[in-house]
């Protein structure tokens, strides 16, 4: 990145004393924190299910779904006592419905709701142990940097220090500003999501820029894997059980986030929801968790300190995604259908170790680019946290939440604001995306093939016979040259970022890009044949990596 700050060294901590970190304080204050979350959730639930019969139906439904889930889709993370809990509930509910007195029944149902929320909240809640964090922050970078310097087959390098971690894990973007804002308000990091290793990677990156640890929701199945559980349980991540889909649970999860933000805990959401199946940068975001940032801002405004929430878009840039094959297959199989991380993908510690090892050993470099922080409306903010709207006026965040001179709580308005914020975030993803040489090669090769067979759908393209998957070298080089020119133009207009290698000539870009394009995969995605042509060995993977540079209207201009 020729013209923006890239850090290759770890920065000093903005707050030295871990015991002063918000994430530690909230962990110390767990009881009170949970009380607030439960009270808020209860209020919303009783508002949502106003009639006694509606509330009863909801509780019955939850109980029924949970029993079915425990029997039909059990996970290792399930507590043995839970089945008993729900069985017991059945008897209690029957007892309540047979009560004569309406007030008694109401009290009974609320008690049931309380117990369910207690069960959920105590499962969700994160713990943060400074001692464990200290071990992790010292040990992980060492392990990772050794891994990053080792190459497959040259294991001995694991035990010798090489380049520092931060030379391979480069941190780029608005880092100074983010550090400044971290003490003036609460940060919400919203990264793109391609790989299961995104969370530890970004965790290291946030530590690398000297910020206090952030909290984030992780799949509950990760907490039971031996290797991870110790870290997962003590580094401030909270547990999300994606099998629980009932409204009470989802409200509780949202409020966990909202209340945490109002208490100043910096947070991390993957706003795309799950990993990008297609390999494209997310252009539609899940609004649920994102909405908690807007709600938290509104709540903060009614407190005297009026603390601001700052949203920081983050783009993770890799030459390859380990799970690419699996992801793109799922994408092609079920366009649009939601697929969550299946339990067996990360079944045991060995699989994980292998995964992490492969990831870091095969990775030439990872660049994390931090975008410009914004307020929850999507306005830019300056170093002191003041907001500026699109026409350059300084604006007060409070004004967005005031109606007829009063600060108002309006969920529908917050939803509209969240939609606007989501649009700003996806735009920022595009602007902070760093194009690598490998992305260029994938894009050009795929476009050449798809233009040649322009009547074929993507499903037919990925089934093209081998002899169709050959590209004339000169044609390829011309395409790469053309794309480079277009990319430089986009860069000039701040529409995206380029890695340093992209500034070199087309031949270099091709050699470098082909070398790193999906280095991890058993077969290189692109390779040169003996006669000098370019061969595509895996059309699906090519499509996946090609998609990374979608959204800049380059498709029709390359070939």
């Amino acid at each position, binding site marked *: 990145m020729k013209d923006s700050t890239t850090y290759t060294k770890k920065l000093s901590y903005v707050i030295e004393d871990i015991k002063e970190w918000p994430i530690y304080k909230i962990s110390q204050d767990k009881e009170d924190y949970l009380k607030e979350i439960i009270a808020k959730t209860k209020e919303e639930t009783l508002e949502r299910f106003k009639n006694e019969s509606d509330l009863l139906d909801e509780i019955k439904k939850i109980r029924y779904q949970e029993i079915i889930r425990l029997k039909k889709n059990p996970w290792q993370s399930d507590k043995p006592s839970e089945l008993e809990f729900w069985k017991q509930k059945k008897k209690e509910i029957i007892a309540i419905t047979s009560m004569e007195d309406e007030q008694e029944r109401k009290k009974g149902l609320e008690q049931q709701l309380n117990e369910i929320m207690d069960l959920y909240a105590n499962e969700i809640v994160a713990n943060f142990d400074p001692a464990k964090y200290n071990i992790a922050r010292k040990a992980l970078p060492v392990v990772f940097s050794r891994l990053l310097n080792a190459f497959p087959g040259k294991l001995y390098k694991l035990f010798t220090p090489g380049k520092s971690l931060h030379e391979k894990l480069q941190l780029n973007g608005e880092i100074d500003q983010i550090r400044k804002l971290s003490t003036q308000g609460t940060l919400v990091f919203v990264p793109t999501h391609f790989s299961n290793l995104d969370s530890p990677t970004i965790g290291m990156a946030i530590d690398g820029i000297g910020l206090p640890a952030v909290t984030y929701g992780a799949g509950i199945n990760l907490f039971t894997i031996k290797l991870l559980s110790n870290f997962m349980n003590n580094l401030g991540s909270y547990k999300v059980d994606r099998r629980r889909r009932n409204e009470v649970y989802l409200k509780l999860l949202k409020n966990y986030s909202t209340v945490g933000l109002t208490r100043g805990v910096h947070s991390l959401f993957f706003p795309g929801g799950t990993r990008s199946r297609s390999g494209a940068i997310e252009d539609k975001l899940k609004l649920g968790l994102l909405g908690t940032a807007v709600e938290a801002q509104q709540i903060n405004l009614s407190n005297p300190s009026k603390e601001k929430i700052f949203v920081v878009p983050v783009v993770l840039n890799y030459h390859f995604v380990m799970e690419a094959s699996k992801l793109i297959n799922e994408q092609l199989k079920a366009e649009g259908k939601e697929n969550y991380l299946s339990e067996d993908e990360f079944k045991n510690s060995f699989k994980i170790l292998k995964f992490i090892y492969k990831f870091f050993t095969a990775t030439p470099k990872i660049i994390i680019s931090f975008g410009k922080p914004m307020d929850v409306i999507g306005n830019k903010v300056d170093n002191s946290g003041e907001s500026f709207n699109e*026409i350059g006026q300084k604006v007060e965040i409070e004004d*967005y939440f005031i*109606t*007829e*001179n009063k600060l108002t709580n309006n969920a*529908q308005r917050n939803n*509209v604001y969240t939609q606007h914020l989501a649009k700003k975030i996806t735009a920022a993803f595009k602007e902070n995306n760093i194009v690598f040489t490998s992305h260029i090669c994938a894009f050009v090769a795929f476009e050449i093939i798809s233009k040649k067979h322009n009547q074929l759908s993507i499903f037919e393209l990925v089934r093209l016979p081998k002899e169709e998957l050959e590209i004339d070298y000169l044609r390829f080089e011309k395409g790469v040259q053309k794309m480079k020119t277009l990319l430089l133009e986009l860069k000039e207009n701040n529409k995206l970022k380029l890695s340093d290698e992209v500034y070199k000539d087309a031949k270099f870009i091709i050699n470098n890009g082909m070398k790193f394009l999906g280095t991890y995969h058993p077969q290189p995605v692109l390779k040169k044949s003996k006669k000098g042509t370019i061969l595509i060995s895996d059309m699906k993977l090519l499509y996946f990596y090609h998609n990374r540079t979608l959204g800049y209207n380059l498709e029709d201009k390359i070939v």
Partner: protein
Amino acid sequence: MEDKTIGVIGAGSFGTAIANLLAENNKVILFARNQKVVDAININRKHKKQEIHLNVSATNTPKEIADKCQLIFPIVPSSNFKLMLQTFKDYLTPRHILIHGTKGLHVEKELVKDLSLMKEEIYTMSELILKETGVVRVGCLAGPNLATEIAEKKLAAAVVASDYDEVIELGKKALSSNRFMVYGSNDTVGIELAGVLKNYIAIAAGMTSGLGYGDNAKALLVTRGMTEMIYIARSLGYSPEAFLGVAGIGDLMATCNSQLSRNFRVGYFLTQGKNLAEIIKEIGEVAEGVKTLQLIRALNKYGFKAPIANVLYHVIFEGMEIKKGVNYLMNINVEADVDFLSK
């Protein structure tokens, strides 16, 4: 800041009528650029042939209206809308809520010569507010609301459309009375388009009247006109729902039946042998419908079927004989009567 004083920007007949309507429930400040108009309202208490309600006061200071009112209704012609916003933008904040009552579109390009217009370059008035000012909570007021009838306190209804429910609620609260019903909608741009596209159908209605065609012909025009409006909106990416309500069919019927509307008069005078230049001289300004026709022509590349608009364009701008145009329309291949409800 005074509590709940409502602002109206633009003291034309409709703006004045809305100010009077609002004044039944609220204190109102009416903005007029011209000091004479301000005096007419504040001193003579009469303007645009309307008695001014006691709760209305006028000003020509943008800052005053922005300071005193959080809910403001801009009601100025689309050709002046951007300029108005630029005058006000330094005083407007995200605290303000704007519900406009202008049925027109904004484009920067000179449409007569330039046909390269893309749909992204067209702004409805609510979009223009978002683009030019720091206001985020915007809405629009649309429906069969002929200014003279509102001024005469005759019964009517309208739609307030906004992405924000609270904007709709505030609009309803401010405007509703037992002679004026207010519906709500979240389809802001759909409602705005319905109000705009009906304008050229009103020109055609003036023609049917001028040619002495009867009610059957007018009914045919209104129904096919609405279908055509829906085709255009659909090809620009909007759904037909808004066209079936008060702001769509409702507004279309009122405008096509009123002999007072500028659009209607343009059509009528054309059948009396006058050309566009003469008509503009007669009625004082270009009717919105004429601009709408130019816009539709520039958008033809989106491939919608709009035979009525095409014929009108030829008649007005290219000297096609009216009878020939009618003849053409009566002989086009007819397809299904209603084909816009299935998605």
